[in-house]
């Protein structure tokens, strides 16, 4: 059995979790393994329709009043307890903020290892094989796990969403008892919740700026360009962030976020090793830079040697009137 932990946001399964489910369904298909979607919470059972549509054969809802708000302690106890009981071979999480917080805690409770930020997994001769970048993407590491179950957190935006013709199903509710005093900390609020800003790690298109943007105000150009795409976000190089032009949550690179969007556009980014490590797994990379020697051009699929302040307005125009996007202004994210 393959168990997939499903993160729910505003009553909906997160897209990253559905990507993981899609991958679990692909892995399970050859030998007919069962894919179980695992939900947890404190209220009425989660809406699991999406989970069935993306490949789950069953859905389990771990319910306890103590899980009404997220706590690593409470969720890890509930999830690890259920895993111990049901004995899956493989347990998958999405490597989101929550997934990265929860998965290692579950692994430690089960005394098993974890593959962080996995970008490829397959069934080998002796169990599952996991590929993940290390040294900020300069190295690809292939791991196997020495104990069962094998746990992995999959990088968002890498695994393809794939709907199934699966019939829906019922959610099985499991009441979980969490001992009083077991939870010594929990989430008490989310600021900017429902904010329109899409995280760069989840975006399909990343429009990034570097030192060549010259000043903070010019990042507005990138935002305007991003608004012409659905699911786009603005990123930045470390030097732009360290210059205070944009917040560090936008930083891409070895000491920032690792992104793998379908389209990555780098404006005025020279392409230091640090930066390339964070974006070279993007599907298509466009670089615009004045300096023909900039290392970013080596990573780019399409390079334009030129002035970004000339290119961006033309690009906006070209995308604006030849695409479906943008006509209605900024699409919802």
């Amino acid at each position: 059995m393959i168990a997939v932990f499903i993160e729910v946001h505003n009553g909906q399964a997160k897209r990253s979790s559905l990507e993981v489910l899609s991958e679990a369904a692909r892995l399970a298909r050859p030998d007919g393994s069962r894919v179980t979607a695992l939900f947890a919470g404190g209220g009425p059972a989660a809406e699991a329709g999406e989970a069935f549509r993306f490949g789950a054969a069953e859905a389990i809802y771990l319910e306890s009043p103590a899980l009404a708000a997220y706590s690593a302690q409470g969720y890890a106890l509930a999830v690890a307890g259920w895993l111990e009981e049901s004995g899956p071979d493989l347990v998958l999480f999405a490597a989101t903020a929550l997934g990265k917080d929860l998965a290692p805690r579950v692994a430690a409770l089960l005394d098993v290892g974890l593959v962080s930020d996995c970008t490829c997994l397959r069934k080998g001769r002796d169990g599952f094989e996991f590929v993940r970048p290390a040294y900020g993407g300069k190295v690809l590491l292939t791991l196997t796990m020495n104990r069962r179950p094998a746990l992995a957190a999959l990088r968002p935006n890498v695994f393809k969403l794939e709907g199934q013709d699966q019939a829906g199903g019922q959610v099985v509710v499991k009441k979980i008892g969490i001992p009083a005093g077991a939870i010594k900390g929990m989430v008490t609020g989310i600021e900017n919740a429902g904010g329109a800003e899409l995280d760069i790690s989840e975006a399909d298109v990343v429009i990034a700026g570097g030192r060549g943007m010259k000043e903070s105000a010019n990042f507005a150009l990138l935002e305007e360009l991003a608004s012409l795409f659905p699911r786009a976000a603005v990123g930045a190089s470390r030097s732009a962030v360290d210059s205070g032009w944009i917040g560090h949550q936008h930083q891409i690179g070895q000491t920032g976020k690792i992104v793998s969007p379908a389209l990555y556009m780098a404006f005025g980014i020279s392409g230091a090793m640090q930066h390339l490590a964070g974006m070279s797994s993007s599907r298509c990379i466009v670089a615009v830079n004045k300096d023909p020697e900039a290392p970013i051009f080596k990573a780019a699929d399409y390079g334009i040697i030129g002035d970004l302040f000339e290119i961006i307005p033309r690009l906006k125009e070209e995308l604006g009137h030849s695409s479906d996007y943008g006509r209605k202004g900024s699409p919802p994210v």
Partner: protein
Amino acid sequence: MKILVFVKRVPDTGSVIRIQPGTGRIVEDGLSFIMSPYDEYAVEEALRLKEACGGEVTAVSVGREDAAAVLRKCLAMGADEAWLIKDDLPETFDGLRMAKIIAGLVRQKFPRADLLLFGRQSAGADNGQSPAMTAALLGLPQATEVTRLEVTGDRATAWREIEGGIEKTEFELPAVVSAHKGLNEPRYETLRGIMAAKKKTIPVLSPEELELSPEQLAPAVSILDLDVPPAKQAGKSLRGNADETVKELVRLLREEAKVI
């Protein structure tokens, strides 16, 4: 307040990483090593908390003897003492093994520690597992990838970035916290600090001295392969004036790359 801060020696993030084929290891010759950048935020936060609340900061590294250089840096920044847990294995990419060693140290030497601070991940293994795993092994609450931390008495509040918002977590001490960029601006060592750090002794312990059995230290993961990613094919350089290149770019994105 007793604060432990865990630091790791890693290759400089600007280095080119080469592989020793078939060994699962990187070539260390010619690399320069630094304290993992996220650990600097953890050290800085520990020092700030000590300055605000009083107490003591102990820096700890698990690794080979050369990790002492990173511990000296912690001392030079202002840590009161530093401990090295000598572990001769090269990078194992095994967060659980690391967490067991750290939890063993805390249980045996620092059972009264109030706060265990880490960087969100080492810039190398890039695992980001040890903080939450250590918290699980010790039964402590955790706040990971934190960009703001407030401690009041025996309680703390941490803020961290999640997709589309800032999440606030309130928890009791003792606790585990991992630091993200944005938490603070790490200080530089002073010359005086560097001189003083040179005179301090760094106690060295082995995992065995922490009563960890070989079974407990058995790796949870095995490295099958370590390789550099395949080189990318040369891309297309678009030439002409801005109008022409932009038109061509949009066409290629649509028709060739099919990404828009």
